[in-house]
C-alpha cells in the first residue's frame, strides 16, 4: 500500500457565510499526479491554497508527510506552487527568478549556478537566463514558473491551472512536457484544472469537485466509466442522464421508471421504490423501430450533426428531454422526425445512487 504525502481530513473553508469547501477528505499518494477537477468556483484554488498555506482551513486537518501543517506559514512548508498567473518576479532575470528559493536558503553560489543551469535545461530554457520575464512568451514564463518551483525539490508541487493562459497547441505540448517532467522527477503533482480532457489525459487520479464537495476520486477510467454521482456522470464526457424510481429488481437488473419512460440498468444495492439516476454514454445508446424488452422510451429523431468522424443524433423524448446518440457511421435509413425507441445493453449504463444533498 502506498503512503499518502498529503492528507486532508474533514477540511472546511468558509469565507464569511460562504462555505466554499465542505468536509473534504482526500489522501494524496507519494509520487502521483492528482488532478482537482471541477467547474469554475467549486473551490479548487481554495483547496490548493490551504495546502500551500495561503489560506487557513476553517476546520479540519491538513497533513504533509504525516505532519500537521495548520500552524506552519507557507515558507515553512515543504510544498511549492506554480501560480495560475505565473507570478514571476518582474524585477529579476529568469536566472534570479529560478535561483530565488536557493538564494533564500543561502545555498553556495556555485551550487546555485549549477542547479539553475540544470533546471533551465530541463525545462528547455537554456540560454534564457538573462532575460526579464517581460521578454518571454506565455509558454516560456510558464516553464520559468515551473523551474522556479521545482528547483527546491519540493515534496509536493501544487499547480493551479498552469496551462490556462496558453493557446490550444502550446497547451497540448506543455501537457506532455509536464507529464514527462513529473514522471522523471517522481514529484507528487497536485494539479488544478477545469478542463476535463486535460485531467483525463494527464492524471493518475482525478478528484472531481462540485460546489465545494468532493464528488469522487478515482483513476480517469474509473471516473469516466463508473461515475458515482449524478454530477460526475454529467461533468465528465458526454452523457445522457435519467432521474427515476426503482420499479423492480431482478438479480442484477434494475427497472427504473423515469419521466421519459421505463428503462433497465444493471447494478447492486438498489431497492424498489428508491430514487436513483441512470447514466448512459451517447455511444452506447441504441435505437430501433420497436420497443426492446425492459425499455419503453419512445422518442423522435430531432436532427443530425456531422462531427468529422462522428455523427451525433439528437432525440426528442416524450417528456421533452433530449438524448444524445452518436455513431461513427450514419445510418441512412434514419430521417429527421422518425419515431424511434431507445434502449441499451443494461450493463453499458451506470446506476447512480441519489445523494443526500
Amino acid at each position, binding site marked *: 500500500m502506498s503512503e499518502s504525502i498529503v492528507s486532508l481530513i474533514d477540511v472546511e473553508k468558509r469565507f464569511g457565510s460562504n462555505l466554499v469547501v465542505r468536509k473534504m477528505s482526500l489522501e494524496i499518494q507519494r509520487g502521483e499526479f492528482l488532478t482537482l477537477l471541477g467547474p469554475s468556483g467549486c473551490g479548487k484554488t481554495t483547496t490548493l491554497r490551504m495546502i500551500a498555506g*495561503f489560506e487557513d482551513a476553517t476546520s479540519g486537518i491538513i497533513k504533509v508527510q504525516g505532519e500537521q501543517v495548520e500552524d506552519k506559514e507557507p515558507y515553512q512548508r515543504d*510544498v*511549492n506552487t506554480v501560480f495560475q498567473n505565473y507570478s514571476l518576479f518582474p524585477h529579476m532575470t529568469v536566472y534570479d527568478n529560478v535561483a530565488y528559493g536557493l538564494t533564500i536558503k543561502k545555498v553556495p553560489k556555485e551550487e546555485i549556478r549549477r542547479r539553475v543551469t540544470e533546471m533551465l535545461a530541463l525545462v528547455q530554457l537554456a540560454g534564457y537566463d538573462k532575460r526579464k520575464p517581460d521578454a518571454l512568451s506565455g509558454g516560456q514564463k510558464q516553464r520559468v514558473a515551473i523551474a522556479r518551483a521545482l528547483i527546491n525539490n519540493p515534496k509536493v508541487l501544487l499547480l493551479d491551472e498552469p496551462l490556462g493562459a496558453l493557446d490550444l497547441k502550446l497547451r497540448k505540448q506543455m501537457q506532455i512536457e509536464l507529464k514527462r517532467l513529473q514522471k522523471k522527477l517522481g514529484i507528487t503533482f497536485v494539479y488544478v484544472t477545469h478542463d476535463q480532457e486535460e485531467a483525463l489525459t494527464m492524471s493518475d487520479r482525478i478528484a472531481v469537485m462540485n460546489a465545494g464537495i468532493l464528488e469522487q476520486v478515482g483513476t480517469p477510467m474509473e471516473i469516466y466509466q463508473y461515475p458515482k454521482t449524478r454530477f460526475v456522470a454529467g461533468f465528465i464526457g458526454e452523457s445522457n442522464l435519467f432521474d427515476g424510481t426503482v420499479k423492480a429488481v431482478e438479480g442484477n437488473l434494475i427497472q427504473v421508471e423515469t419521466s421519459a419512460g421505463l428503462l433497465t440498468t444493471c447494478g447492486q444495492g438498489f431497492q424498489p421504490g428508491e430514487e436513483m439516476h441512470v447514466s448512459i454514454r451517447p455511444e452506447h445508446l441504441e435505437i430501433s423501430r420497436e420497443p426492446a424488452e425492459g425499455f419503453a422510451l419512445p422518442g423522435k429523431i430531432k436532427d443530425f450533426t456531422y462531427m468529422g468522424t462522428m455523427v451525433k443524433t439528437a432525440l426528442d423524448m416524450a417528456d421533452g428531454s433530449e438524448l444524445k446518440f452518436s455513431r461513427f457511421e450514419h445510418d441512412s435509413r434514419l430521417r429527421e422526425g422518425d419515431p424511434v425507441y431507445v434502449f441499451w445493453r443494461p450493463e453499458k449504463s451506470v446506476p447512480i445512487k441519489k445523494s443526500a444533498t
Partner: protein
Amino acid sequence: MSKRKSDSSTGRHRRRLPALATAGPVSVWMILFVTLPMLFIIYISFMSRGVFGDVVYTFSLNSYHTLLDSTYFKVISKSLEAALLTTVLCLALGYPFAYYIARKPPETASKLIMLIMIPFWTNSLMRLNSWLLLFQTSGPVNAFLQWTGITDHPVTFIYTDALVILGLITNMLPFAVLPLYSSIEKLENSLLEASSDLGATPGQTFLRVTLPLTFPGIFSAIILVFIPSLGIYTVSDILGGGKVLYIGNIIRNQFGSIRNWPLGAALSVLLLVITGLLIFIYTRFAKIEDMEVV
C-alpha cells in the same frame, strides 16, 4: 502585414495631432510663468545691489562670492540636513503607513487617504500657530508631560530645531504617503505569496520583492518631500520663531526686509541647481526602473 503597418502609422498620426494642439497653450503658459521668471531670477543674481536696496543693473559676481561665506554655507548645509532628515523620517513613517493603507480594502483605503489629506484643507499658518499653542511652556503637551511625571519642569519645545523638523514632517508626510501608497497598491499580492512559497520569511520578502518593486514610489516620495522641505520657510518661520534659519528664510529676508535681491536671487539659483540635480537623478532612475520593472 501591410495592413498592420498602415494601422500603426495612422495610430501615430492620430496621436501627434492632439499632442501639438495641447502642447501649444501649455508651452506658452510655461514660458510666461515659469521660464521667464526663472531667467529673470538668474539674471538678477548676476547684478549688484544699490545703496538703497535697489537692483543696479551692472554685472557682478558679488552675490555668489557672498554665498561662499561661512554663515551662508552653514545655513545651506543646515537646510540640506533638515530636508534630508525630514525626507528620511517621512519615508520611515510614511512607508509602513502607506503599506497598511494599501493592504486595506479599497473603501477603507480611500477613507484613510482622506484622513491624511484633511490637514491640507486647513490653512497652514493657522495649523502651525496652533502648534505653538500646543507646545508652548504652559501648553497642553507640557502639562501632560508633567502630569505623567516624565519631567518635573516645563520643556522648551517652541523655537527649537526639533519642533521645526517635527513641523516639516507633519507638513510633508502626505507627499510621502501618496506616491508610496500608489506604488505599494500596485504590488501584486501573488508575488508576495510566491516569495513566501519559495521559502522567504516576511522580512526577506520585504527586502527582495516589496522594496525593489516599490522603488518608483520611494523615489517620487523623496523628490516630493525633499524639494519642498528645502525651500519652505513658513514652518521654520513660525515654529522656529526667527531663531531657526533655513535657506528659505534667508531668501525671503533678502527679497523682503533686507532688500538684497541679487543675493536672494543667487540663493534661489542655488536651490534651483540642487532641485534640478535631484530631478535629473530621478529621471535617470525612473528610466532604469522603466526598463527593469515594467
